[in-house]
């Protein structure tokens, strides 16, 4: 069933493939002119165009691209000079580590906040929830990031320097998963674990603040809806404890829209990564994609969009499976 579901995502990916190929070609920039460098005479530009294979027809270029892709070759990033696949595999864990930490942080804050706000509508906690989420969603992430860095690093000195995943003196743990926290734990290296956890705090908080709003608001709304439902009234009438009513009956039933929001939020986060990574010098795929876009470097842009496409497909699959766990009545099928 899951296999079938995955197969059905293939046309999507093929669509993504064709569209990104066409869009990158339609961008107004000229990579040959860009990479001809300081001494870019017209001949030099043509020479480089031929070297990059950009003098061939679009159809030919696409055929080569698909052929290479079938071999697992995503091409070479001109801006860093390395294979795109290596770049993406090397940087994806950094982005995912950040995004997942942010998501966990956001969930850990937003869901209790939403539940509390729903059980006490109109109270101070409800107002605080509203204020916090409005602020979080209305400030652009790069601004929140700069603000947090200014306050907690520059002014107070509590947070470590916004200089990437580890401070310059520390040595990264041996790569197993590429997630520094997990790799450090596997290596039993507590110092690196703490060092990388500290580096994560500010960027993860920045991103978490941005998605608090949809999560907390959705939890609150769903909980309010469920709490006024008949079965909750019945449960209360039976004299079940407040905790049981709230968590076993109400929360579980409110979870479905929350999980949907979680999926949406995760994709937001992947997108907003780009700016947060820039601010915190985080070596993830977002900042890589931006740099490639600046240079009209086709191969990494295509690789990036394709990776994102694949991630979204996986994400949707995961959400569907979660639905089934939350609510067994939901059928997962192609």
């Amino acid at each position, binding site marked *: 069933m899951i296999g079938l579901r995955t197969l059905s995502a293939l046309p999507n990916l093929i669509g993504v493939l064709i569209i990104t190929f066409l869009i990158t070609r339609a*961008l*107004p*920039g*000229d990579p040959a*002119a*860009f*990479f*001809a*460098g*300081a*001494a*870019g*005479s*017209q001949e*030099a*530009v043509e*020479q*480089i165009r031929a*070297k990059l294979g950009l003098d061939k027809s679009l159809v030919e270029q696409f055929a080569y691209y698909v052929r290479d892709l079938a071999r697992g070759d995503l091409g070479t990033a*001109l*801006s*860093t*000079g*390395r294979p795109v696949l290596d*770049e993406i595999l*090397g*940087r994806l864990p950094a982005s995912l580590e950040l995004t997942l930490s942010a998501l966990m942080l956001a969930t850990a804050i937003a869901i209790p906040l939403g539940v509390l706000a729903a059980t006490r509508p109109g109270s101070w906690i409800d107002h605080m929830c509203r204020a916090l989420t409005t602020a979080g969603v209305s400030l652009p992430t790069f601004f929140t990031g*700069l603000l947090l*860095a*200014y306050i907690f*690093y*520059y002014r107070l*000195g*509590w*947070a*470590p*320097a*916004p*200089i*990437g995943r580890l*401070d*310059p*003196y520390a040595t990264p743990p041996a790569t197993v998963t590429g997630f520094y926290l997990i790799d450090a*734990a596997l290596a*039993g290296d*507590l110092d690196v*674990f*703490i060092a990388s*956890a*500290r580096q994560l*705090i500010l960027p993860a908080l920045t991103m978490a603040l941005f998605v608090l709003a949809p999560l907390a608001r959705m939890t609150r709304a769903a909980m309010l809806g469920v709490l006024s439902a008949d079965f909750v009234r019945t449960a209360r009438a039976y004299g079940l404890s407040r905790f049981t009513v709230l968590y076993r009956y109400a929360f579980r039933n409110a979870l479905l829209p929350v999980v949907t929001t979680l999926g949406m939020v995760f994709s937001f986060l992947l997108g907003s990564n780009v700016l947060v990574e*820039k*601010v915190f*010098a985080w*070596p993830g795929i977002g*900042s890589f994609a931006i*740099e490639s*876009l*600046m*240079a009209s470097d086709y191969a990494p842009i295509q690789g990036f969009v394709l990776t994102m496409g694949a991630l979204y497909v996986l994400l949707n699959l995961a959400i569907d499976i979660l639905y089934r766990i939350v609510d067994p009545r939901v059928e997962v099928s192609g």
Partner: protein
Amino acid sequence: MKSRLMSRFTFRLFAAMCFGSLVPTAVPAASPKDVLIVANETGPNSLDIHGVGANRPSYGVAWLVYDRLITHGRKKLPDGTLSYDYSKIEPELAESWVVAKDGLSVTFKLRKNATFHDGTPVTAKDVKWSYDRALAMGGFPQFQMKAGSLEKPEQFEVVDEHTFRVSFPRRDKMSLPDMAVPVASIYNSTLAMKNATPDDPWAANWLKNNAAGGGAYKVESWKPGQEIVYARFDNWKSGPMPKVRRVIQREVPSAGNRRALLERGDIDMTYEMPPKDFQELSKAGGKLHVASVPVENAVWYVGMNVTKPPFDNVKVRQAVAYAIPYEQLMAGAFYGRAVKLWGGSGLRPGQPVWPTPHSYKTDLAQAKKLMQQAGHADGFETTLSYDLGQGTISEPVAILLQESLAKIGIKLVINKVPGANWRAAMLKKDMPLIVNRFGGWLNYPEYFFYWTYHGQNAVFNTMAYQNPELDRLVDAARFEADRKKYENQVRDFIEVAHKDVPRVPIAQPVMDVAMQKNVSGYTYWFHLQPDYRQIVKQ
């Protein structure tokens, strides 16, 4: 074993959380004296300066990891900052050299004890291979070699193991300096050839990611887009042993954060910040030191496309030159971190130097008069373009220009061109009016003019300017042996350029580098990349 390790880890983590060591502390680690931490906007994208698309920071890699045959001496500027000395050529890999009497060849004697990082001795064969490679790779390295009349592999000759001769097709004063630019780096040909393939005879793919040099620093690790770490090569023979043993160069894209890192003492050095930051950091009594040196042979300018009306009319161009709000630009866009190039004594320079001030100044009455004479009393509308990649300075310049030119009836629509498109746009030469910056590596006026004003119409002649008289003067100055004649030719072509004014020079940019007070020895080099070999950290 693994599980015991894990449980110990969990225990210590738990303990750490209990005792609050996860809560960050304010004490920055004291940085060792022989380790330098630098943060910059972008890092190298290649370890091979000859490769396609190697960016500016990769010139810095070539400079540190590879040696040249010769280099330049250093001099102290009036404010105490150190700069390379263009007029002084000093030994690097070559311990001595002799220029032939007719000036048509030079013979280098290489250091006998010099080795590459892997221990292979450096021989004349490596030098020839490297020069041949610079020509064979095409594009920028070939171009740069040709700028010094280094045009054909036959010019490079291995005399014996430690003797290397270069012959020149003509006497060219740029030949020797051209062998001291990063492109003329000496590669370990034995190591490179081991990694060459029939498809890739010059090992371009391998050298992109691996260094094969013998310079003062080795690449300890390189993560493109993140950081490059250099370690000193302790067997370096081509100069005094550097004091800094290890250099960590991180990429921190946000200029604001780089400033914060520097102010809090987490990094030792940074550059590429907006001029406003440097202005604030350099204020007297600050905790930091800012070294500023005017960038040689570089100019911020307003360029006008002379092939199309209305800028085909010299009166209109002069009107623009009189309507530019120079003082405002210096204060509001450059924050004083530049050298003024207006308000000089005349259009003909006293000294044969470039950049040199012209005598235009903000004079709206004069500008209006010229517009009237040109038949544009009612003004016109046009587009002003600039490179978004240089937006920190170009954007305020564009806005101030828009405001000022409106006063003489020229209505400007501002067109921001993204960095990737800028070069293509320059190549097309169809932008009527631009704000831009250009700098030439070799510090000769005629070199600058050859690229920017000469009728050969290089990409940097953004105005598509053609003037046979100026071309003749620039060509003559290039190979003029007589000092006096040369100086007059330079004065002549600068005068022509200022009278015809296809581009209006505004200011000469300044290279600012901010560092901790305990860092000294920073030296300005024409390639603008940091040279850690001379840095000392107290």
